[in-house]
């Protein structure tokens, strides 16, 4: 899918209008800030990475957050121009912006398109008003329909998110909601099971016993049903939670899962970048103030660039590779990481999982079945040899 040297660029915009109770992203309530200084910091960081790793070709730019649709379209444009000005650009470059379906934001869609964005990712989450308010969202189901209407006129490609397996939601209720959503799609959907992340408002409710999630058996049924419905409508899963018609897959996310290099810019953003013959992980300072100061001090916002050992690279490749339909080729993973795969993988145990029907393993190519996906977090710890 990708060529050697192709990269993705992730821009993290850390501000939201309010904090959703399930969200553990690095987000802050929007405060008065100096837009000029922020833009300068992003541009400066981009230039730093461009000189660190010149000559690369960008296949994707992704504005995530937070709520990057709160940015001014000309800021978005300036960032896109900076990225495409200093690096080569693939003719199929995907430029995605995350947005929430509120009225102020949807009025900016056209301006974002003109700024260079060619794909929209909408935080819809549900088509039901009571669910939207439970999830702490600021929009209504009417807003959703309007926003999707505008998006489909403005953008050739767009996607949206739904959250399911919410407390009290029945299997049939979810099936109906999903089926209602299908005509609103343009070949792509991300459907996430509600997950309680530590430190969120929901986590506190769970601790107090005010919120109860469905059990694993029930969650498995939700998952299987979702996958069936989406497949029936021509959008089979190509990753655990992502569904798409052929060609509609998110190129940006494929960069992560296929372990291409990606540059992460903005408070709390992570990156995986190769330069000087070595692969590094980067993590930007989380607090906006710290991040700004770091960029002003050193030209980028990262704590430092930590080299990743061949074994760690290998395991990260597997982590992503087992989540995608296409799976992972162990020989190629070995080549990419420099780690001999038979040193790390217990092939006998691999065989056990193959017999169980969770993995296929042919000519050293490993790919998960749907049953395997359901337990994908247990697979790697199971097949990796103990240190």
């Amino acid at each position, binding site marked *: 899918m990708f060529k050697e040297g192709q990269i993705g660029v*992730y821009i993290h915009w850390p501000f939201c209008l309010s904090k959703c109770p399930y969200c553990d992203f*690095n987000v802050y309530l929007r405060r008065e800030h100096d837009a000029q200084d922020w833009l300068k910091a992003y541009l400066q960081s981009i230039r730093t990475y461009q000189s660190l790793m010149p000559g690369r070709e960008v296949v994707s730019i992704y504005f995530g957050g937070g709520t990057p649709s709160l940015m001014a379209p000309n800021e978005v444009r300036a960032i896109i121009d900076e990225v495409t000005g200093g690096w080569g650009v693939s003719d199929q470059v995907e430029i995605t912006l995350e947005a929430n379906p509120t009225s102020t934001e949807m009025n900016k869609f056209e301006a974002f398109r003109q700024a260079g964005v060619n794909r929209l990712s909408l935080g819809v989450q549900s088509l039901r008003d009571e669910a939207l308010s439970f999830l702490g969202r600021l929009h209504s189901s009417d807003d959703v329909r309007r926003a999707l209407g505008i998006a489909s006129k403005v953008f050739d490609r767009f996607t949206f998110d739904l959250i399911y397996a919410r407390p009290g939601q029945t299997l049939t209720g979810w099936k109906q909601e999903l089926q209602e959503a299908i005509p609103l799609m343009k070949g792509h959907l991300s459907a*996430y*099971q509600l*997950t309680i992340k530590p430190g969120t408002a929901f986590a506190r409710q769970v601790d107090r016993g005010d919120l109860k999630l469905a059990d*694993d*058996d029930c*969650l*498995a049924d939700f*998952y299987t049903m979702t996958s069936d419905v989406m497949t029936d409508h021509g959008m089979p899963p190509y990753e*655990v*939670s992502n569904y798409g018609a052929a060609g509609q897959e998110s190129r940006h*996310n494929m960069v*992560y*899962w296929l372990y291409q290099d*990606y540059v*992460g810019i903005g408070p*709390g*953003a*992570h*990156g*995986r970048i190769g330069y000087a013959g070595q692969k590094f*992980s980067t*993590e930007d300072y989380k607090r906006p103030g710290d991040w700004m100061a770091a960029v002003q001090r050193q030209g980028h916002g990262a704590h430092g660039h930590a080299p990743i050992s061949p074994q*760690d690279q290998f*395991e*990260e490749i597997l*982590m*992503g590779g087992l*989540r995608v339909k296409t799976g992972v080729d162990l020989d190629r993973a070995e080549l990419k990481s420099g780690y001999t795969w038979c040193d790390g993988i217990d092939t006998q*145990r691999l065989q*056990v*999982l193959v017999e*169980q029907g*969770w993995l296929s393993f042919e000519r050293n190519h490993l790919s998960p079945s749907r049953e395997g*996906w*359901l*337990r*994908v*977090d*247990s697979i*790697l*710890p*199971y097949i*990796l040899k*103990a*240190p």
Partner: protein
Amino acid sequence: MTQDLKYIRNFAIIAHIDHGKSTLADRLIQTCGGLTEREMSAQVLDSMDIERERGITIKAQTVRLLYTAKDGHEYQLNLMDTPGHVDFSYEVSRSLASCEGSILVVDSTQGVEAQTLANVYQAIDNNHEIIPALNKVDLPASDVEKARQEIEDVIGLDASEAVECSGKTGIGIDDLLEAIVTKLPPPSEGDAEKPTKALLIDSWYDAYLGVVILVRIIDGHLKKGQKIKFMNTRAEREIDRVGVFSPKPVMIDELGPGEMGFITAGIKDIEDTLVGDTITDMRKPCDTALPGFKPSVPMVFCSLFPVDMGDYEDLRDSLGKLKLNDASLHFEPEQSQALGMGFRCGFLGLLHMEIIQERLGREFDLDLIPTAPSVVYHIYRTNGEMVELYNPADMLDPVYIEHIEEPWIKATILTPDEYLGGLLQLCQERRGVQIDLTYAGGRAMLVYRLPLNEVVFDFYDRLKSISRGYASFDYELDGYDKNNLVKLEIRVNQEPVDALAMIVHRDNAESRGRQMCERLKELIPRQMFKIAIQAAIGGKVIAAEHLSALRKDVTAKCYGGDVSRKKKLLDKQKKGKAKMRQYGNVDIPQSAFINALKMGDE
């Protein structure tokens, strides 16, 4: 100059637990000026943290006091404070074997208790002269006449001249000191001219002094620079310090016949110091060794495994250090499939076991997994041979077993009448056989035979709760008897979990097996496959549970930043794998077994 034997008194203070031995020792020390007011604290001889916290004596302590009696002479008193709890009776028996007299303390608010009896009989076996002391007379509930009567009726000891005293207020202490010099005998023999002959009573490790040895001199002397020989272990050393406890350690020039004190001699190995050994002069040895002490017989066993396998060597060293200090501790290496390398340890009882486990944790900072307590079984093979079974995991295949015998104890329980019914029922539930039931002064003395196995779990706690703390309990081993006993094996994924094997009475096997399977089902996390958890006797499964396969384990999102987080988790999981045990194709966290064992105590 050698101390005249006439002016030496060596004695032990014995009693039932909490009757006030250590407090009485405080007053004796204080009256004789061993410590100033400022240096004094309550139960000053209970110096270990664990003793102070629990308010009990675990280790016997010896102090030398100087007392000027009414006859005008100064006497050297060597006082040995002993523990009251039955689990530390080896400390008591060694003390009693090292001196000539005893003060029998009886709490005058409680009267004679089970351990009073046990200890006084031991003192009599050692030909001791005994002074009864009726303690705690300061309390309103004190009934001196009743206590005196019980000493006469229950023990059969003349209590007409018993000293009435209070360790708390100091009443009667002077009378007690006079009784010690007038009623207790001086050391009977002892010749300063003969070759050195001394009894090794105890040893322990002291942070400042190193290995310290407590001795009682029979003949000759021990002095600094002297080359000595331990007759049993054959170790040879040079004495570098000689001293006594006042109770502070005080260095002196030498110890002579009849005296007690300590020496240090650059000893490193615990193997060199065997309690009961005879110490003599290397160049001029005595001809015969002292008879020494009866070895202690451990009654309760459990295995200890380090949570972190890297701590195995530390555990061995720590057990060695404790053994140096506690001659009744036994241990040997053991290998378990479920829990790794550890030690099978023998204890005198449950409290002893608990104390050792706690000391290993706090004094040596070790994190341990103890298995459930068990006893030693006698397995008679079909070929007539008998093997001792220390660990249920080592049980033979039943086809080779003719029969199994288990240890029984003779238990003596003293209780106020009103709790008798409840206690009889308890003994009956525990497969007990009544031997005797007598009354003396409103109290019942109940003698029962019980399988030790039934006592090691929670018998003592139950006894205390049924009697609201009033009943007292003492026991001694009383042979082995045949019974319908079987090894109950727990299997996970068809493989036996050695640490969970237990010997049970056939009638209880089903219910115990079912219980354990249910528990494990709760404790073992769901695996990649369906797992069978079974309880079996021989090849026969008598209870089973199934743990269904993991149905779902997947995080919804995995984008840029999630990779680092998930990688950290993966690293932790990989590390955790080292702490897992493999059963066929599954890894089971050790914590599941640890928790299953913990719940076994409930």
